[in-house]
Protein backbone atom coordinates (compact mmCIF):
# COMPACT_ATOMS: atom_id res chain seq x y z
CA UNK A 1 0.00 0.00 0.00
CA UNK A 2 1.46 3.39 -0.89
CA UNK A 3 1.88 6.02 1.78
CA UNK A 4 -1.00 8.39 1.27
CA UNK A 5 -1.27 11.76 2.99
CA UNK A 6 -4.62 10.51 4.20
CA UNK A 7 -3.03 8.04 6.57
CA UNK A 8 -0.28 10.32 7.85
CA UNK A 9 -1.73 11.66 11.11
CA UNK A 10 0.62 14.66 11.22
CA UNK A 11 -0.55 15.93 7.84
CA UNK A 12 -4.15 15.53 8.98
CA UNK A 13 -3.67 17.30 12.31
CA UNK A 14 -1.36 20.09 11.21
CA UNK A 15 -3.73 22.68 9.62
CA UNK A 16 -6.12 22.62 12.54
CA UNK A 17 -3.33 22.70 15.07
CA UNK A 18 -1.57 25.62 13.39
CA UNK A 19 -4.71 27.73 13.09
CA UNK A 20 -5.83 27.01 16.66
CA UNK A 21 -2.35 27.69 18.04
CA UNK A 22 -1.82 30.83 15.97
CA UNK A 23 -5.04 32.46 17.16
CA UNK A 24 -3.88 32.12 20.76
CA UNK A 25 -0.11 32.51 20.56
CA UNK A 26 0.08 35.54 18.27
CA UNK A 27 -2.31 37.67 20.40
CA UNK A 28 -0.61 36.40 23.52
CA UNK A 29 2.80 37.48 22.22
CA UNK A 30 1.38 40.89 21.33
CA UNK A 31 -0.13 41.25 24.79
CA UNK A 32 3.18 40.34 26.37
CA UNK A 33 5.08 42.92 24.32
CA UNK A 34 2.54 45.72 24.92
CA UNK A 35 2.29 45.00 28.63
CA UNK A 36 6.06 45.55 29.01
CA UNK A 37 6.10 48.73 26.90
CA UNK A 38 5.14 52.32 27.22
CA UNK A 39 2.27 52.70 24.82
CA UNK A 40 0.04 55.60 23.73
CA UNK A 41 -3.68 55.37 23.22
CA UNK A 42 -3.29 54.62 19.52
CA UNK A 43 -1.29 51.52 20.31
CA UNK A 44 2.13 52.84 19.29
CA UNK A 45 4.94 51.45 21.43
CA UNK A 46 7.22 54.09 22.98
CA UNK A 47 9.92 51.95 24.56
CA UNK A 48 10.47 49.44 27.33
CA UNK A 49 8.57 50.09 30.55
CA UNK A 50 9.40 47.10 32.69
CA UNK A 51 6.62 46.19 35.08
CA UNK A 52 5.17 49.71 35.25
CA UNK A 53 1.93 48.71 33.52
CA UNK A 54 1.40 45.83 35.92
CA UNK A 55 2.01 48.09 38.94
CA UNK A 56 -0.34 50.71 37.51
CA UNK A 57 -3.12 48.12 37.35
CA UNK A 58 -2.80 47.37 41.04
CA UNK A 59 -2.71 51.05 41.95
CA UNK A 60 -6.11 51.68 40.37
CA UNK A 61 -8.94 51.61 42.95
CA UNK A 62 -11.40 50.65 40.18
CA UNK A 63 -9.32 47.53 39.58
CA UNK A 64 -9.50 46.50 43.24
CA UNK A 65 -13.28 47.01 43.21
CA UNK A 66 -13.65 44.96 40.04
CA UNK A 67 -11.38 42.25 41.45
CA UNK A 68 -13.51 41.92 44.57
CA UNK A 69 -16.73 41.88 42.55
CA UNK A 70 -15.30 39.23 40.21
CA UNK A 71 -14.75 37.09 43.27
CA UNK A 72 -18.32 37.65 44.50
CA UNK A 73 -19.70 37.19 40.97
CA UNK A 74 -17.84 33.96 40.25
CA UNK A 75 -18.45 32.25 43.56
CA UNK A 76 -21.98 33.58 43.88
CA UNK A 77 -22.98 32.10 40.54
CA UNK A 78 -20.99 28.87 40.80
CA UNK A 79 -22.24 28.08 44.31
CA UNK A 80 -25.76 29.30 43.52
CA UNK A 81 -25.95 27.09 40.42
CA UNK A 82 -24.56 24.13 42.35
CA UNK A 83 -27.10 24.52 45.15
CA UNK A 84 -30.04 24.74 42.74
CA UNK A 85 -28.86 22.25 40.11
CA UNK A 86 -28.20 19.36 42.49
CA UNK A 87 -31.80 19.04 43.79
CA UNK A 88 -33.15 19.77 40.31
CA UNK A 89 -31.05 16.94 38.88
CA UNK A 90 -32.17 14.61 41.68
CA UNK A 91 -35.83 15.43 40.89
CA UNK A 92 -35.33 15.03 37.14
CA UNK A 93 -33.68 11.69 37.78
CA UNK A 94 -36.88 10.38 39.42
CA UNK A 95 -39.52 8.66 37.34
CA UNK A 96 -42.60 10.92 37.06
CA UNK A 97 -45.18 11.97 34.46
CA UNK A 98 -43.94 14.66 32.10
CA UNK A 99 -40.29 14.25 33.06
CA UNK A 100 -38.99 14.79 29.54
CA UNK A 101 -41.01 18.01 29.26
CA UNK A 102 -39.62 19.17 32.61
CA UNK A 103 -36.07 18.44 31.39
CA UNK A 104 -36.58 20.54 28.25
CA UNK A 105 -38.00 23.44 30.30
CA UNK A 106 -35.07 23.41 32.73
CA UNK A 107 -32.64 23.46 29.77
CA UNK A 108 -34.33 26.40 27.97
CA UNK A 109 -32.14 29.23 29.35
CA UNK A 110 -29.12 27.53 27.78
CA UNK A 111 -30.70 27.77 24.32
CA UNK A 112 -30.82 31.57 24.21
CA UNK A 113 -27.59 33.50 23.75
CA UNK A 114 -26.30 35.52 26.70
CA UNK A 115 -26.42 38.99 25.10
CA UNK A 116 -30.04 38.42 24.07
CA UNK A 117 -30.96 37.12 27.53
CA UNK A 118 -29.28 40.14 29.08
CA UNK A 119 -31.11 42.57 26.79
CA UNK A 120 -34.46 40.98 27.71
CA UNK A 121 -33.63 41.34 31.41
CA UNK A 122 -32.51 44.92 30.89
CA UNK A 123 -36.04 45.65 29.72
CA UNK A 124 -37.71 43.44 32.34
CA UNK A 125 -35.80 45.31 35.07
CA UNK A 126 -36.58 48.75 33.64
CA UNK A 127 -37.44 51.14 36.48
CA UNK A 128 -40.52 52.86 35.01
CA UNK A 129 -42.29 50.24 32.93
CA UNK A 130 -40.31 47.05 33.42
CA UNK A 131 -42.43 43.95 33.71
CA UNK A 132 -40.72 42.72 36.88
CA UNK A 133 -41.88 45.83 38.73
CA UNK A 134 -45.42 45.58 37.35
CA UNK A 135 -45.54 41.84 38.02
CA UNK A 136 -44.38 42.23 41.62
CA UNK A 137 -46.81 45.11 42.15
CA UNK A 138 -49.70 43.04 40.81
CA UNK A 139 -48.75 40.31 43.26
CA UNK A 140 -48.66 42.85 46.08
CA UNK A 141 -44.96 42.28 46.83
CA UNK A 142 -43.99 45.85 45.94
CA UNK A 143 -45.88 49.09 46.44
CA UNK A 144 -43.50 51.29 44.43
CA UNK A 145 -41.22 50.82 41.43
CA UNK A 146 -37.61 49.85 42.07
CA UNK A 147 -34.93 51.23 39.75
CA UNK A 148 -33.24 47.83 39.60
CA UNK A 149 -30.34 48.75 37.35
CA UNK A 150 -29.77 52.30 38.60
CA UNK A 151 -27.62 51.38 41.60
CA UNK A 152 -25.15 48.58 42.23
CA UNK A 153 -26.91 47.39 45.39
CA UNK A 154 -29.83 46.05 43.32
CA UNK A 155 -28.19 45.72 39.88
CA UNK A 156 -25.33 43.44 40.89
CA UNK A 157 -27.42 40.89 42.82
CA UNK A 158 -29.84 40.80 39.89
CA UNK A 159 -26.97 40.16 37.48
CA UNK A 160 -25.77 37.33 39.70
CA UNK A 161 -29.29 35.86 39.72
CA UNK A 162 -29.42 36.01 35.92
CA UNK A 163 -26.01 34.33 35.88
CA UNK A 164 -27.25 31.54 38.15
CA UNK A 165 -30.34 31.03 36.00
CA UNK A 166 -28.32 30.59 32.79
CA UNK A 167 -25.71 28.37 34.50
CA UNK A 168 -28.25 25.91 35.94
CA UNK A 169 -28.93 23.99 32.67
CA UNK A 170 -25.32 23.06 31.99
CA UNK A 171 -24.70 22.16 35.63
CA UNK A 172 -27.88 20.07 35.84
CA UNK A 173 -26.87 18.21 32.68
CA UNK A 174 -23.52 17.22 34.17
CA UNK A 175 -25.23 16.00 37.34
CA UNK A 176 -27.85 14.05 35.39
CA UNK A 177 -25.02 12.32 33.55
CA UNK A 178 -23.41 11.55 36.89
CA UNK A 179 -26.62 10.25 38.44
CA UNK A 180 -27.30 7.93 35.51
CA UNK A 181 -23.83 6.42 35.95
CA UNK A 182 -24.59 5.25 39.52
CA UNK A 183 -25.64 1.59 39.42
CA UNK A 184 -29.19 1.17 40.74
CA UNK A 185 -28.39 -2.08 42.59
CA UNK A 186 -26.38 0.00 45.07
CA UNK A 187 -29.62 1.68 46.14
CA UNK A 188 -31.49 -1.62 46.23
CA UNK A 189 -28.81 -3.16 48.45
CA UNK A 190 -28.97 -0.11 50.73
CA UNK A 191 -32.77 -0.36 50.90
CA UNK A 192 -32.51 -4.02 51.95
CA UNK A 193 -30.17 -2.94 54.72
CA UNK A 194 -32.89 -0.53 55.84
CA UNK A 195 -31.28 2.75 54.76
CA UNK A 196 -33.50 5.84 54.52
CA UNK A 197 -33.59 8.29 51.58
CA UNK A 198 -31.41 10.90 53.24
CA UNK A 199 -28.92 8.25 54.33
CA UNK A 200 -28.73 6.84 50.79
CA UNK A 201 -28.18 10.33 49.43
CA UNK A 202 -25.35 11.02 51.88
CA UNK A 203 -23.69 7.61 51.78
CA UNK A 204 -24.09 6.67 48.09
CA UNK A 205 -25.12 9.58 45.87
CA UNK A 206 -22.89 12.33 47.23
CA UNK A 207 -19.60 10.38 47.26
CA UNK A 208 -20.19 8.99 43.77
CA UNK A 209 -21.16 12.45 42.48
CA UNK A 210 -17.95 14.02 43.79
CA UNK A 211 -16.03 13.88 40.46
CA UNK A 212 -18.98 15.40 38.61
CA UNK A 213 -19.33 18.17 41.17
CA UNK A 214 -15.60 18.88 40.87
CA UNK A 215 -15.78 19.07 37.09
CA UNK A 216 -18.85 21.30 37.14
CA UNK A 217 -17.27 23.68 39.65
CA UNK A 218 -14.02 24.05 37.72
CA UNK A 219 -15.77 24.45 34.35
CA UNK A 220 -18.27 26.93 35.77
CA UNK A 221 -15.52 28.96 37.45
CA UNK A 222 -13.84 29.28 34.05
CA UNK A 223 -17.04 30.18 32.18
CA UNK A 224 -18.38 32.60 34.77
CA UNK A 225 -15.06 34.34 35.34
CA UNK A 226 -14.99 35.03 31.58
CA UNK A 227 -18.61 35.97 31.23
CA UNK A 228 -18.94 39.38 29.63
CA UNK A 229 -22.39 39.79 28.00
CA UNK A 230 -24.66 39.72 31.06
CA UNK A 231 -23.02 42.70 32.74
CA UNK A 232 -22.13 44.54 29.54
CA UNK A 233 -25.62 44.36 28.04
CA UNK A 234 -27.45 45.27 31.26
CA UNK A 235 -25.35 48.04 32.82
CA UNK A 236 -22.00 48.17 30.95
CA UNK A 237 -20.44 48.00 34.41
CA UNK A 238 -22.17 51.21 35.48
CA UNK A 239 -23.36 53.29 37.17
CA UNK A 240 -19.87 54.75 37.74
CA UNK A 241 -18.09 51.39 37.34
CA UNK A 242 -19.94 50.02 40.37
CA UNK A 243 -20.94 46.75 38.68
CA UNK A 244 -17.68 46.14 36.79
CA UNK A 245 -16.03 42.77 37.00
CA UNK A 246 -12.54 42.14 35.60
CA UNK A 247 -13.62 41.35 32.03
CA UNK A 248 -15.79 44.47 31.67
CA UNK A 249 -13.15 46.60 33.42
CA UNK A 250 -10.53 45.20 31.04
CA UNK A 251 -12.69 46.03 28.03
CA UNK A 252 -13.23 49.62 29.20
CA UNK A 253 -9.55 50.05 30.01
CA UNK A 254 -8.60 48.99 26.48
CA UNK A 255 -11.34 50.36 24.25
CA UNK A 256 -12.83 53.26 26.21
CA UNK A 257 -9.98 54.76 28.24
CA UNK A 258 -7.26 53.77 25.75
CA UNK A 259 -4.90 52.51 28.47
CA UNK A 260 -3.59 49.69 26.32
CA UNK A 261 -0.49 48.99 28.41
CA UNK A 262 -2.40 48.45 31.63
CA UNK A 263 -5.12 46.51 29.82
CA UNK A 264 -2.51 44.19 28.29
CA UNK A 265 -0.87 43.62 31.67
CA UNK A 266 -4.26 42.78 33.15
CA UNK A 267 -4.99 40.43 30.22
CA UNK A 268 -1.75 38.55 30.81
CA UNK A 269 -2.52 38.15 34.51
CA UNK A 270 -6.06 36.96 33.77
CA UNK A 271 -4.73 34.59 31.14
CA UNK A 272 -2.34 33.08 33.70
CA UNK A 273 -5.18 32.62 36.19
CA UNK A 274 -7.38 31.00 33.54
CA UNK A 275 -4.56 28.72 32.47
CA UNK A 276 -4.23 27.58 36.07
CA UNK A 277 -7.92 26.69 36.28
CA UNK A 278 -7.83 25.03 32.87
CA UNK A 279 -4.89 22.84 33.84
CA UNK A 280 -6.78 21.96 36.99
CA UNK A 281 -9.66 20.90 34.76
CA UNK A 282 -7.39 18.84 32.51
CA UNK A 283 -5.96 17.07 35.58
CA UNK A 284 -9.48 16.32 36.82
CA UNK A 285 -10.65 15.19 33.38
CA UNK A 286 -7.61 12.97 32.81
CA UNK A 287 -7.99 11.44 36.25
CA UNK A 288 -11.65 10.73 35.38
CA UNK A 289 -10.38 9.13 32.16
CA UNK A 290 -8.16 6.73 34.01
CA UNK A 291 -10.72 5.63 36.57
Amino acid at each position, binding site marked *: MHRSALIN*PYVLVLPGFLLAAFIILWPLYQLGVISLSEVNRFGQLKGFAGLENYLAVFADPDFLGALWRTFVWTFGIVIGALVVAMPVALILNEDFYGRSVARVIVMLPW*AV*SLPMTAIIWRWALNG*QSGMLNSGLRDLGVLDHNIQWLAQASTAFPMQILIGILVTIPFTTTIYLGGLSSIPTDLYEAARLEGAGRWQMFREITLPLMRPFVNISVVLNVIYVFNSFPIIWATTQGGPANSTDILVTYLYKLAFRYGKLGEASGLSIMMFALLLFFTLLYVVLAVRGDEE
Partner: protein
Amino acid sequence: MSAKAKRTIVAWLLLLPLIVLVFFPFAVMFLTAVKPADEVLQPTWWPSDFAWSNFLTMWSEANFGPALLNSLYVSILSTLLALVVSIPAAYALSRFRFAGRGFFRQFLLVTQMLSPIVLVIGLFRLIVWLGLIDNVNSLVFLYAAFNIAFSVWMLQSYFATIPRELEEAAWMEGASPATALVKVFLPLAVPAITVTAIFSFINAWNEFVIALTMLRRQESYTLPIQIFSLVSGRYTVEWTNVMAATFVATIPVAIIFACLQRYLVRGLALGAVK
Protein backbone atom coordinates in the same frame (compact mmCIF):
# COMPACT_ATOMS: atom_id res chain seq x y z
CA MET B 1 -53.38 7.50 44.13
CA SER B 2 -50.43 5.60 42.72
CA ALA B 3 -46.90 6.23 43.94
CA LYS B 4 -45.94 7.60 40.55
CA ALA B 5 -48.82 10.08 40.52
CA LYS B 6 -47.76 11.34 43.95
CA ARG B 7 -44.16 11.65 42.79
CA THR B 8 -45.38 13.60 39.77
CA ILE B 9 -47.20 16.19 41.88
CA VAL B 10 -44.29 16.63 44.28
CA ALA B 11 -41.74 16.87 41.46
CA TRP B 12 -43.66 19.52 39.52
CA LEU B 13 -44.42 21.51 42.69
CA LEU B 14 -40.73 21.54 43.63
CA LEU B 15 -39.72 22.58 40.12
CA LEU B 16 -42.40 25.27 39.88
CA PRO B 17 -40.35 28.26 41.15
CA LEU B 18 -37.55 27.49 38.69
CA ILE B 19 -40.02 26.98 35.84
CA VAL B 20 -41.61 30.38 36.54
CA LEU B 21 -38.15 32.00 36.46
CA VAL B 22 -37.27 30.22 33.21
CA PHE B 23 -40.44 31.34 31.46
CA PHE B 24 -40.37 34.89 32.81
CA PRO B 25 -37.87 36.32 30.25
CA PHE B 26 -39.58 34.47 27.40
CA ALA B 27 -42.92 35.96 28.44
CA VAL B 28 -41.41 39.44 28.72
CA MET B 29 -39.87 39.12 25.27
CA PHE B 30 -42.95 37.77 23.54
CA LEU B 31 -45.56 40.01 25.19
CA THR B 32 -43.51 43.15 24.60
CA ALA B 33 -42.91 42.18 20.98
CA VAL B 34 -46.66 41.96 20.25
CA LYS B 35 -47.89 44.90 22.34
CA PRO B 36 -49.44 47.80 20.43
CA ALA B 37 -46.97 50.70 20.41
CA ASP B 38 -48.90 52.88 22.89
CA GLU B 39 -49.08 50.12 25.52
CA VAL B 40 -45.39 49.29 25.83
CA LEU B 41 -44.66 51.85 28.51
CA GLN B 42 -47.78 51.02 30.52
CA PRO B 43 -47.41 48.67 33.44
CA THR B 44 -49.77 46.02 32.07
CA TRP B 45 -48.72 42.46 31.35
CA TRP B 46 -51.24 41.33 28.77
CA PRO B 47 -51.55 43.32 25.52
CA SER B 48 -55.11 44.50 24.71
CA ASP B 49 -54.51 43.37 21.15
CA PHE B 50 -51.83 41.27 19.48
CA ALA B 51 -50.05 43.63 17.08
CA TRP B 52 -48.35 41.11 14.78
CA SER B 53 -47.47 43.94 12.41
CA ASN B 54 -44.80 44.91 14.95
CA PHE B 55 -42.57 42.32 13.34
CA LEU B 56 -42.84 44.03 9.95
CA THR B 57 -42.19 47.47 11.49
CA MET B 58 -39.19 46.06 13.33
CA TRP B 59 -37.77 44.54 10.15
CA SER B 60 -37.42 47.93 8.49
CA GLU B 61 -36.83 50.18 11.52
CA ALA B 62 -34.31 47.95 13.24
CA ASN B 63 -32.22 47.32 10.12
CA PHE B 64 -32.88 43.64 10.68
CA GLY B 65 -32.40 42.30 7.14
CA PRO B 66 -28.76 43.34 6.57
CA ALA B 67 -27.77 42.19 10.07
CA LEU B 68 -29.45 38.84 9.46
CA LEU B 69 -27.50 38.41 6.22
CA ASN B 70 -24.24 39.28 7.98
CA SER B 71 -24.97 36.78 10.74
CA LEU B 72 -25.81 34.04 8.24
CA TYR B 73 -22.69 34.78 6.17
CA VAL B 74 -20.35 34.74 9.17
CA SER B 75 -21.92 31.70 10.83
CA ILE B 76 -22.03 29.54 7.70
CA LEU B 77 -18.56 30.37 6.39
CA SER B 78 -16.82 30.09 9.75
CA THR B 79 -18.50 26.73 10.35
CA LEU B 80 -17.36 25.41 6.97
CA LEU B 81 -13.82 26.68 7.49
CA ALA B 82 -13.63 25.09 10.93
CA LEU B 83 -14.96 21.79 9.60
CA VAL B 84 -12.46 21.67 6.74
CA VAL B 85 -9.53 21.62 9.15
CA SER B 86 -11.28 19.80 12.01
CA ILE B 87 -12.53 16.71 10.18
CA PRO B 88 -9.03 15.50 9.15
CA ALA B 89 -7.64 16.25 12.61
CA ALA B 90 -10.50 14.43 14.33
CA TYR B 91 -10.08 11.51 11.93
CA ALA B 92 -6.39 11.27 12.80
CA LEU B 93 -7.12 11.39 16.54
CA SER B 94 -9.73 8.65 16.33
CA ARG B 95 -7.81 6.32 13.96
CA PHE B 96 -4.08 6.60 14.61
CA ARG B 97 -1.81 6.30 17.62
CA PHE B 98 1.02 8.75 17.01
CA ALA B 99 3.61 10.55 19.08
CA GLY B 100 2.12 13.84 20.23
CA ARG B 101 -1.46 12.57 20.17
CA GLY B 102 -1.86 13.01 23.93
CA PHE B 103 -0.33 16.48 23.73
CA PHE B 104 -2.72 17.48 20.94
CA ARG B 105 -5.74 16.27 22.91
CA GLN B 106 -4.70 18.25 25.96
CA PHE B 107 -3.93 21.26 23.80
CA LEU B 108 -7.50 21.06 22.50
CA LEU B 109 -8.94 20.83 26.00
CA VAL B 110 -6.95 23.88 27.10
CA THR B 111 -7.78 26.05 24.08
CA GLN B 112 -11.43 25.13 24.37
CA MET B 113 -11.46 26.76 27.80
CA LEU B 114 -9.67 29.98 26.85
CA SER B 115 -12.14 32.71 26.19
CA PRO B 116 -11.43 35.35 23.52
CA ILE B 117 -12.08 38.12 26.02
CA VAL B 118 -8.64 37.91 27.68
CA LEU B 119 -6.99 37.96 24.25
CA VAL B 120 -9.21 40.65 22.78
CA ILE B 121 -6.52 43.38 22.55
CA GLY B 122 -4.14 41.02 20.78
CA LEU B 123 -6.92 39.84 18.47
CA PHE B 124 -7.80 43.45 17.67
CA ARG B 125 -4.18 44.14 16.70
CA LEU B 126 -4.13 40.98 14.61
CA ILE B 127 -7.20 42.08 12.69
CA VAL B 128 -5.80 45.60 12.25
CA TRP B 129 -2.56 44.07 10.95
CA LEU B 130 -4.53 41.95 8.48
CA GLY B 131 -6.47 45.04 7.39
CA LEU B 132 -9.80 43.40 8.21
CA ILE B 133 -11.23 45.85 10.74
CA ASP B 134 -14.94 46.47 10.15
CA ASN B 135 -14.99 43.56 7.74
CA VAL B 136 -17.23 40.57 8.46
CA ASN B 137 -14.50 38.28 7.10
CA SER B 138 -12.48 39.02 10.24
CA LEU B 139 -15.23 37.25 12.18
CA VAL B 140 -15.25 34.32 9.75
CA PHE B 141 -11.54 33.82 10.40
CA LEU B 142 -11.65 34.30 14.19
CA TYR B 143 -14.77 32.23 14.81
CA ALA B 144 -13.41 29.39 12.69
CA ALA B 145 -10.10 29.41 14.58
CA PHE B 146 -11.77 29.51 17.99
CA ASN B 147 -14.18 26.73 16.97
CA ILE B 148 -11.49 24.25 15.97
CA ALA B 149 -10.87 22.91 19.46
CA PHE B 150 -14.57 22.36 20.04
CA SER B 151 -15.18 20.82 16.60
CA VAL B 152 -12.23 18.43 16.73
CA TRP B 153 -13.18 17.36 20.23
CA MET B 154 -16.82 16.74 19.34
CA LEU B 155 -15.99 14.98 16.07
CA GLN B 156 -13.34 12.67 17.45
CA SER B 157 -15.58 11.50 20.28
CA TYR B 158 -18.12 10.40 17.66
CA PHE B 159 -15.63 9.17 15.06
CA ALA B 160 -14.23 6.83 17.73
CA THR B 161 -17.60 5.04 17.78
CA ILE B 162 -17.43 4.21 14.04
CA PRO B 163 -15.76 0.76 13.79
CA ARG B 164 -12.47 0.94 11.91
CA GLU B 165 -12.92 -2.63 10.65
CA LEU B 166 -15.20 -1.20 7.97
CA GLU B 167 -12.39 0.83 6.42
CA GLU B 168 -9.93 -2.02 6.83
CA ALA B 169 -12.34 -4.31 5.01
CA ALA B 170 -12.46 -1.78 2.17
CA TRP B 171 -8.64 -1.73 2.05
CA MET B 172 -8.64 -5.53 1.80
CA GLU B 173 -10.97 -5.25 -1.14
CA GLY B 174 -8.32 -3.14 -2.82
CA ALA B 175 -9.70 0.35 -2.17
CA SER B 176 -7.12 3.08 -1.61
CA PRO B 177 -7.23 4.85 1.77
CA ALA B 178 -8.72 7.85 0.04
CA THR B 179 -11.54 5.82 -1.49
CA ALA B 180 -12.19 4.02 1.80
CA LEU B 181 -12.35 7.34 3.57
CA VAL B 182 -14.77 8.95 1.13
CA LYS B 183 -16.93 5.91 0.32
CA VAL B 184 -17.02 4.12 3.67
CA PHE B 185 -16.11 6.44 6.51
CA LEU B 186 -17.61 9.80 5.55
CA PRO B 187 -21.17 8.53 4.95
CA LEU B 188 -21.16 7.02 8.43
CA ALA B 189 -19.74 10.25 9.87
CA VAL B 190 -22.41 12.52 8.38
CA PRO B 191 -24.61 12.65 11.53
CA ALA B 192 -21.64 13.55 13.74
CA ILE B 193 -20.48 16.20 11.28
CA THR B 194 -23.99 17.65 11.03
CA VAL B 195 -24.39 17.95 14.78
CA THR B 196 -20.95 19.52 15.16
CA ALA B 197 -21.66 21.93 12.32
CA ILE B 198 -24.92 23.04 13.92
CA PHE B 199 -23.20 23.78 17.21
CA SER B 200 -20.40 25.71 15.49
CA PHE B 201 -23.07 27.66 13.67
CA ILE B 202 -24.89 28.48 16.92
CA ASN B 203 -21.64 29.50 18.62
CA ALA B 204 -20.91 31.91 15.80
CA TRP B 205 -24.51 33.12 15.69
CA ASN B 206 -24.45 34.01 19.40
CA GLU B 207 -20.93 35.46 19.68
CA PHE B 208 -20.75 38.92 21.18
CA VAL B 209 -17.37 40.24 22.35
CA ILE B 210 -15.35 39.74 19.16
CA ALA B 211 -18.09 41.17 16.97
CA LEU B 212 -18.48 44.14 19.33
CA THR B 213 -14.76 44.84 19.04
CA MET B 214 -14.11 44.28 15.33
CA LEU B 215 -17.22 45.83 13.75
CA ARG B 216 -17.59 49.61 13.72
CA ARG B 217 -20.19 50.55 11.13
CA GLN B 218 -23.81 49.45 11.12
CA GLU B 219 -23.50 47.88 7.65
CA SER B 220 -21.21 45.20 9.03
CA TYR B 221 -23.09 44.48 12.29
CA THR B 222 -24.18 40.95 13.05
CA LEU B 223 -27.53 40.40 14.80
CA PRO B 224 -26.38 40.49 18.46
CA ILE B 225 -24.45 43.74 17.85
CA GLN B 226 -27.26 45.30 15.83
CA ILE B 227 -29.81 44.54 18.55
CA PHE B 228 -27.42 45.71 21.26
CA SER B 229 -26.90 48.97 19.35
CA LEU B 230 -30.67 49.59 19.55
CA VAL B 231 -30.44 49.51 23.34
CA SER B 232 -27.13 50.94 24.47
CA GLY B 233 -26.34 54.63 24.70
CA ARG B 234 -29.79 55.79 23.61
CA TYR B 235 -32.20 58.07 25.44
CA THR B 236 -35.31 56.47 23.99
CA VAL B 237 -35.33 52.78 23.24
CA GLU B 238 -38.04 51.30 21.01
CA TRP B 239 -38.54 48.26 23.19
CA THR B 240 -41.19 46.73 20.93
CA ASN B 241 -38.71 46.67 18.06
CA VAL B 242 -35.93 45.38 20.29
CA MET B 243 -38.00 42.53 21.70
CA ALA B 244 -39.43 41.61 18.29
CA ALA B 245 -35.91 41.52 16.85
CA THR B 246 -34.65 39.49 19.80
CA PHE B 247 -37.52 37.08 19.33
CA VAL B 248 -36.82 36.49 15.63
CA ALA B 249 -33.06 36.28 16.20
CA THR B 250 -33.20 33.77 19.03
CA ILE B 251 -36.26 31.53 18.79
CA PRO B 252 -35.36 29.47 15.66
CA VAL B 253 -31.83 28.87 16.95
CA ALA B 254 -33.09 28.13 20.45
CA ILE B 255 -35.48 25.46 19.17
CA ILE B 256 -32.72 23.73 17.21
CA PHE B 257 -30.42 23.94 20.22
CA ALA B 258 -33.03 22.49 22.56
CA CYS B 259 -33.58 19.54 20.20
CA LEU B 260 -29.89 18.74 19.80
CA GLN B 261 -28.61 19.66 23.22
CA ARG B 262 -28.24 16.08 24.45
CA TYR B 263 -25.70 15.38 21.68
CA LEU B 264 -23.68 18.38 22.81
CA VAL B 265 -23.47 17.05 26.31
CA ARG B 266 -22.60 13.54 25.23
CA GLY B 267 -19.84 14.69 22.96
CA LEU B 268 -18.39 17.45 25.06
CA ALA B 269 -18.67 17.59 28.81
CA LEU B 270 -19.07 13.92 29.55
CA GLY B 271 -16.66 12.95 26.81
CA ALA B 272 -14.10 14.69 28.95
CA VAL B 273 -15.33 13.24 32.23
CA LYS B 274 -15.57 9.66 31.12
